[in-house]
């Protein structure tokens, strides 16, 4: 539910900034943008001889990219504790992932299976593999060719959230679809 909501917002934001002129002010984060210069930055001082500073705009979302997948479809699904069962929320996201993948027939992806830290390291490697393959099997059933999908398990080694809390565990029990940059 949360993920869908975020995606919808992201889509709206994308639509809003499809033309550089229409970029909403909130997107212009001076702390992030490259050469904007923080207050007191020497480059905006008298030494530069210019009263105008410039910066690169963040690039737009490229269709078929990881960012595209993340923002328009959702790149990850979540699991219950010690489970690789896809719930209805997960299958909803995977339905859209499958449609998206079928729209980019040249793209290959890797499904990364992850667990929370409440298990032994080796068992979690097996559980992460089971989760990644649950996602792969679902996508294949929706006609995404199996040859386009690699799987890898990271077990508990690459948490999305570092804390040890129920909320962190829930966000770490995941399978993430990653667009391969080299096919």
């Amino acid at each position, binding site marked *: 539910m949360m993920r869908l909501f975020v995606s919808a917002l992201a889509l709206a934001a994308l639509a809003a900034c499809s033309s550089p002129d229409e970029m909403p002010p909130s997107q212009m984060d001076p702390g992030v943008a490259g050469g904007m210069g923080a207050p007191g930055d020497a480059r905006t001082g008298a030494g530069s001889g210019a009263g105008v500073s410039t910066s690169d705009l963040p690039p737009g979302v490229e269709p078929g990219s990881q960012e595209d997948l993340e923002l328009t479809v959702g790149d990850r699904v979540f699991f219950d504790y*010690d489970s*690789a069962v896809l719930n209805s929320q997960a299958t909803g996201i995977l339905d859209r992932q499958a449609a998206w993948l079928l729209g980019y027939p040249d793209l290959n992806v*890797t499904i990364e299976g992850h667990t929370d*830290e*409440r*298990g*032994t*390291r*080796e*068992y979690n*490697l*097996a*559980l992460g*593999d*089971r989760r*990644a*393959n*649950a996602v*792969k*099997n679902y996508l294949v059933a929706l006609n995404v060719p199996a040859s386009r999908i*690699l*799987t*890898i*398990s*990271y077990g508990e*080694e*690459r*948490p*999305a*959230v*570092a804390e*040890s809390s129920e909320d962190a565990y829930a966000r770490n029990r995941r399978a993430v679809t990653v667009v391969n940059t080299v096919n």
Partner: protein
Amino acid sequence: MIVSLARRAVIRLAMALSVVALATPAPAQIELDITEGVVEPLPIAVSEFYGASAEEQRLGSAIADVVAADLERSGLFRPLDRRAFIQSPEQLRTLPRFADWRQINAQALVTGQVQASGDGLVVEFRLWDVFAGVQMRGLRLQTSEDQWRRIAHKVADAVYERLTGESGYFDTRIAYIAETGAATDRIKRIAVMDQDGENHRYLSDGGDLVLTPRFDPSVTSLAYLRYAGTVPQVQLMDLRTGQERVLGQFDDMTFAPHFSPGGQTVALTVAAAGNSEIHLLDLASGRQTRITNHPAIDTSSSFSPDGGQIVFNSDRAGTPQLYVMSARGGEPRRISFGGGQYGSPAWSPRGDLIAFTKIDGGFFHIGVMRPDGSNERLLTRSAFDEGPTFAPNGRVILFSRKDPRTGRSRLMSIDVTGYNERLVPTPTDASDPDWSNIIP
């Protein structure tokens, strides 16, 4: 087990290291029963070893320090403060004046001397029963000078063996994963060190994620999981040459390596299409044999000391539990019934116990049970205690403990009796320990 009779310990000769018994040991009276957990450690005096030259004196003092530290760490001995010693190392070259040692309440006394010639080193040591006034053990050890630490560990092993009746575990190494960096993108490196933390070195540069290093029985190679390319697989590293190779010819991810006691076979887990099964890989022939066959997770195998059976982790009953089966395959027998989840089993080299990780009631425990599943005892409790590995004598367990508040992971040791829990210092955070055999 109690030693009541003196006996000759057999110490294998290694490389440049030779050991000779000095005189026949006499019957002695000190007995240290370590089966129930020692509450009162044995007071022992470890004199600096005598050396004629300044260099020999320096080595003699350093060797005594290492011996005393080994014995102290075991929790079974209390080395006495040398400043209370009445006799000097030089005076101890002949028969000790036992009254002087009784006066400071030493029950056992370790003396020795060091002779350096060229790059060679000859060390003699004797263990004395202070109250009976007899020698319990005498050894001459010979090696190159850069191996002086191993001599010290062998002396400590000989003292431990003579006084407890159990084989020692001080001349051993620990492999583990050194951790640095952010929790979400942890940098992990393989590290190896002596059992006391010395001679520490890194065997990988942190570029690839590496996990679960496991020594072969001869302590000459390490099997471990490396994330390289698109399929993570178990690698074998030769510790003498540093050369590495992928173990076996598997198409899928392999992990959870574990050597058979003889070293000819590696058990590992193959994850194929979402199903993890345990396979055996014969190192000489390359033959690969799957020994489990179940849609559930089967992983984390560990051999019995005779190599005939394995204990492993499976969720075939719905939650992760421990099973024992023949190493040739067959029907597994569930041995864990205590409630909660079980994992990472390790079969004791003594054969009498299986150690495990247990997750129950929001805590992680290290525990032990008999191989038939009876007599389960939990030794530790914390938020995250994991991955037990036995000392080669089966008396001490290493594991890793993570503190959820700080996110730090450290190595810990504890006796199988549940006593003497200690931090094992490492330069960085640490996990995934593996304790080697006695170095041949």
